[in-house]
């Protein structure tokens, strides 16, 4: 639990397009401990998927390029590996569950072949052994009559089953790190719950570290221990899952948390009048533009003059709680003062404190 397994240092992945550069990932630092579940949250285009692709070295080059930083697996740099050596890492040490189970399986090979491919390559199994192992893996991910399923093609399976196959593939060589890029986004809630439960069980059994990439905060809450919130290529907040949900610091995190309706919410207040959802105004900044100050300025409700001048640093406000915002540059406070909309799940005491802060502020 305590050893650093995967370390990302100041990763910058840029895409050189015609006439401009998109800074998809712009200085991300992250440490993943052994057996830990880390969540990466953010909207589409914030760089979370590109971070994952960079770790796997799957960024298309050109136009993409990792221009700075390093990725260390057990202290060994992945970026310095030759392509053949990297192939030994992919699927063996680090594996990935891709976003769309519909498109990321190869339609012309059987499910069994696709799972055994990795086994034959990394674990020197014969074809028969690999198929046998595939059947065991399919059983492990809860697919009924796996002996029949290994012979089937992806189109014969439903979305939930395909995602299970993807998980079986990812787990095949018992990797140290598993990267799950929106593994449940395309699925229905009931299937999502099945898949999440399965991943949780496997993760605990094998003690695999997981990076869970999603835009769904609720999924993060039930699955991870630590959360990294990304916005426009940078990390804006990083904290334990409890801290993120109970006392989010960055205005963006706060906005994300309060803008989703929670089951049981209604557009009516108790007295029958209308209630609107809290929204983050505007949209993500144009990736072509280089923003001088904080990247969230155009949408931030608490924007100050100095926000436009220079980008704030990612600073610790407490042990294990990092935030990139000037609101916290001088003082470390219990709860943020800008809690206009009470965040769900605050304890009574915290709510009182928030109210006090608001009056004071």
């Amino acid at each position, binding site marked *: 639990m305590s050893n650093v397994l995967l370390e990302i240092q100041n990763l910058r992945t840029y895409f050189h397009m015609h006439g401009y550069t998109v800074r998809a990932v712009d200085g991300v630092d992250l440490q993943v401990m052994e057996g830990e579940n880390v969540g990466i949250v953010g*909207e*589409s285009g914030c760089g979370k998927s590109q971070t994952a692709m960079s770790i796997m070295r799957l960024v298309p080059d050109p136009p993409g390029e990792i221009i700075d930083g390093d990725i260390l697996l057990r202290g060994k740099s992945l970026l310095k590996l030759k392509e053949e050596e990297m192939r030994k890492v992919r699927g063996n040490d680090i594996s990935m569950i891709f976003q769309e189970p519909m498109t990321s399986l190869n339609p012309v090979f059987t499910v069994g072949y696709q799972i055994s491919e990795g086994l034959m390559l990394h674990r020197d199994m014969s074809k028969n052994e690999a198929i046998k192992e595939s059947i065991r893996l399919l059983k492990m991910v809860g697919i009924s009559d796996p002996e029949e399923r290994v012979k089937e093609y992806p189109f014969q399976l*439903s*979305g*939930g*089953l395909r995602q299970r196959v993807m998980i079986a593939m990812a787990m095949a060589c018992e990797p140290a790190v598993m990267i799950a890029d929106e593994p449940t986004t395309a699925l*229905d*809630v*009931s*299937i*999502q*719950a*099945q898949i*999440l*439960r399965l991943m949780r069980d496997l993760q605990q059994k094998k003690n695999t570290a997981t990076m869970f990439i999603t*835009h*769904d*905060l*609720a*999924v993060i*809450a*039930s699955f991870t221990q630590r959360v990294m919130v990304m916005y426009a290529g940078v990390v804006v907040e990083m904290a334990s*899952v*409890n801290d993120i*949900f109970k006392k989010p610091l960055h205005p963006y995190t706060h*906005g*994300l*948390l309060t*803008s*989703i*309706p*929670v*089951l*049981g*919410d*209604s*557009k009516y207040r108790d007295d029958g009048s*209308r209630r*609107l*959802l*809290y*929204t*983050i*105004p505007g*949209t*993500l900044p144009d990736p072509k533009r280089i923003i001088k100050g904080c990247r969230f300025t155009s949408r931030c409700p608490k924007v100050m003059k100095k926000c436009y001048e220079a980008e704030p640093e990612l600073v610790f406000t407490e042990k294990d709680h990092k935030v990139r915002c000037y609101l916290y540059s001088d003082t470390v406070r219990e709860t943020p003062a800008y809690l206009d909309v009470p965040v*769900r*799940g605050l304890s009574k005491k915290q709510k009182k404190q928030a109210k006090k802060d608001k009056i004071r502020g």
Partner: protein
Amino acid sequence: MGNQLLAVRNLKKYFPVKAGPFSGKSLILKAVDGVNMDIMKGETIGLVGESGCGKTTVGRCMLRLYEPDEGRIFIDPEKHTKAINIVEEFDAKRFALEDKIHSIEREIAGPKVLRKEIRSLLKQVHELKLKARQAGRRTDILSMGRDDMSKARKRLQMVFQDPWASLNPMMLVKDIIGEGPKEFGTHKGAALDKWVNELLDKVGLPRAASNRYPHEFSGGQRQRIGIARALSLTPSIIVCDEPVSALDVSIQAQVINLLIELQDDLDLTYIFIAHDLSVVQYVSDRISVMYLGKMVENANAKQLYKNPRHPYTISLMSSVPVADPEHKSEEIILEGDVPSPVSPPPGCTFHPRCRYAIDICRKEIPVLEKDKDGHVIACHNPPND
């Protein structure tokens, strides 16, 4: 609220599907199988269910984007009670005849006399169909002729799921929004431009947007264009088919708020189709839960959240993840997938995944029953009873 806008009766839509890639045989996929709904003025009806349960098909049938195989959709039913009674009478007769034909077909497969009998019965069925269509041509959307239908179209509009696919990339935004009014002749020339600008204001887009193409906009903005287009004919009912599921979290809230504000301003009625339970729960007054083409539960939003009664709804609710790391959910996870709608299980279609299934569930199809609070479920053995 109060007066009823739409009454959907026994709506059925079957799709023929091929049995296999090289098979000539065709099977029938029952996408919607006997759905009834009453829609009141000013309310939002949520339609939820897993993918493939037929919720989108219901929405599309309402606008006759699909031609349903069976059923009636009465618009303004309170004004046309007489016609509706006549239509329903004809339909009842026709169903009786169709049952008779089925029973004859089941018994025999051959003698010429009987075939003749069937033929004459079929003729009667056809006549009854025509009569019912004639009687319902003013109020039943599905039997309307061209003129009545175009009047009805003005009142029924739709917002589509995918804002990338539902806007014509070759058309300017003002043409997209103004196409309806132009076609129906409600606004012309300078008045049309003014109206488009007004609509853009309403959905919170800059007026300059009217001379740009859809690809210049982000997902949330495109969805706003889609909403403006739906509003352009001042409809009373808008079918929103997954209007926010393709959008990012922060944009989702903006669009939901816009829809709610527009509803208050323009006195709109929504049919809100989505698979995201918490969103549906938030915007809806009443919610219908669908499973494999059938409605299994129907209740007002609060009731459904506090006291879901159908086992399917209960497990659906419990599997919605909660944004609270300390939340200890007692997940009642459904095992397996939705069965294929081509060959649904006999009896209650939910029984293979239901933990409360008893013998009768495997044999008989449950019917929707209302309890004293107006909470409707179709279940033989509802839990906590």
